[in-house]
């Protein structure tokens, strides 16, 4: 990560948005806005982002539009000590990109094996729900990767973060956020 990016992110820590790269310049955006603007991904492939979007939406409705794949992509592209991911407090060893690659890879392999070559994003909503339910209970046969229940816990937490962990999320639930120092842009 370039120094200028780090400075931008630290500034973001104060104002509540994250540092995304738009047209070669660092811009402070919420993940929702980054998704809406089609900001280029830095670490995830398009296929991985599509799978992550589908997983997030299956886990927590609204996660896709809230920008879960841009959130994860931005977070696994910065130094671990600056990361805000739940992976951090669940003792995942940095670099966190390794965990997400392994988890998404395991999901895709399992999905393709069980669904005639179709990846998770290609499944119907009912199939996606069934897959996730099996994954959380470690019931997917031939699973190869981080334990399914742990992948479920962590990705579910990421989806909860982007949908309910923000000021907008509290507002949607009808409860006060009650900030001492508020993240701005309702993130």
């Amino acid at each position, binding site marked *: 990560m370039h120094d200028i990016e780090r400075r931008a992110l630290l500034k973001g820590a104060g104002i509540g948005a994250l540092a995304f790269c738009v047209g070669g310049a660092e811009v402070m955006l919420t993940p929702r806005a980054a998704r809406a603007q089609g900001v280029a991904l830095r670490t995830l492939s398009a296929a991985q982002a599509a799978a992550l979007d589908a997983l997030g939406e299956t886990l927590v409705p609204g996660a896709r539009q809230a920008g879960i794949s841009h959130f994860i992509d931005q977070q696994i592209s910065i130094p671990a000590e600056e990361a805000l991911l739940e992976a951090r407090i669940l003792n995942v060893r940095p670099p966190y990109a390794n965990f997400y690659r392994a988890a998404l890879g395991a999901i895709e392999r399992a999905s393709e094996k069980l669904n005639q070559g179709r990846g998770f994003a290609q499944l119907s909503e009912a199939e996606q729900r069934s897959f996730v339910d099996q994954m959380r209970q470690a019931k997917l046969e031939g699973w190869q990767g981080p334990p399914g229940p742990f992948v479920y816990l962590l990705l579910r937490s990421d989806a909860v973060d982007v949908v309910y962990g923000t000021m907008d999320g509290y507002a949607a*639930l009808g409860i006060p956020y009650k900030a001492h120092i508020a993240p701005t842009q309702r*993130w």
Partner: protein
Amino acid sequence: MAVNEKVDAVVVGAGASGSVFAAVLARAGKKVVVLEQGPDWQPKELISSDIWGRRIKPAGGPFLLEGKNPFGYVYQAGWGVGGAALHYFANFPRLLPNDFKMRSEHGRGLDWPISYSDVAPYYDQVAQDVGVSGDAKAEEIWRPAGRPYPMPPMQTFRNGEIWRKGCESSGIRLVPAAVGMNSIEYKGRPACIYDGWCHIGCPIGALANPLVTYLGEARKAGAEVRARAMATRVLTNAQGNKATAVEYYDANKERQVQEASVVVLAAWSAQNPRILLNSATDKHAKGLANGSGLVGKYVMCHFSSGTWALFDEDMQSYLGTTGAQLMSYDRYDKTSRKGAFGSSFIVAGTALKTSDLGGFANARLDLFGPDLATFMKRAARGLTRIGAFGEALPNIENRIELVSDKDEFGMQLGKIVHGFDQDAVALWNANFDEGLKIAKATGAKEVWSARGNMPTIHLMGGTIMGAEAANSVTNSYGQTHEVPNLYVAGPGIFATAGASNPTYTVLALSLRGAEQMAKDWGTIAD
């Protein structure tokens, strides 16, 4: 390598225990340097957000986590000035007299070399120093009398009060929780506003974190806090009987040596043993202060049995503090649970946030998709929780040791091996059973146990205190038996865990150790 001018004391770790030593010694006129591996956090950086709050915890600690019940390291560890006490819940229950003589009274666990009466005056003093709110008189149904707390109890909310009815049905008496928070303005620090963001750092200083208590006082008295200084070894003289300095790596990853007359290791129960083991020399082949072979041994932690209750009514679930509003020692006797052994400490009433490990999204981990969305709506105002911390006995197999892999400074990584024994599991289950009974008596619409992997909470032990060098690492002041000018501070010196949140005891023991050091400086310092 740079060798820094010798100071009176170098303290490794700017958390709860190190801050006390730094304050006491600096006030006594000693030149003190505090080394802290992480950043120098300022209150204004403590953004009210579970997401942003993760920055004040380590990013992958230098420990492998193994055993039947691996310890949840990062969530509870500190990273930066303030240490773990920058994000602790500030529940301030004491240990009780029965914690100190478990071996003598029950033939189980270990004895402490001191009694409750040795620590009690320091509990009272800490309460005045940092500010504790509560009702000391009400607690006297379980413990000897002491001084009143300097502030009245905190405000309670429906999410706490509802548990009174349930607990009464089981004969459990609830009293106001003792907390290190301001129910009223105290020492120029404002009163709490009950926003429930304690666990990601209180930026207004209503919660007694080190920045606004002992560490702030230490700085005012002249102590220097050096952030981003990663301590790797304690250096000793040729004879191996005196500590002479601490080796550390600065923000530029340059090797530095800070010479000092006294060394205090206050880097928490995991890192202190790692540093001691990494400080092996020909005079201390097994690691410094490890003649007993007990450095890194008897690692302990608490577990918790939580019970959820969901109401249709507004329980004010979003109001209060992260810690407890009410508490009870009525299950604290070691034999209070049939078929189990150890103390339980009950807490009720907490402000709930949406995300993070303690967030209410995790109250029903089995739910996802539209079912989770429906639950979140209901839980936002109607959910509340009661919990019981349980005591795990010291077990020599629960340990911290070095492994061959190294960190960026060439220091061997550590490994924390931890598992609960059958007594702990039985106690955990018994507390779940009673929790459900209590919850049903509240009249809640739905109740359920927060079962999952058995949680590991509050790391203790690893450098236990004792009366003899053969069976412990330090004496009751934290002074190592083998190197008199080397102290260990923090929950690592606990001989048993009790079931109370440990930080109040950490502060009390640190104050006791620091005052002894200052008083006997002439015989201790090199």
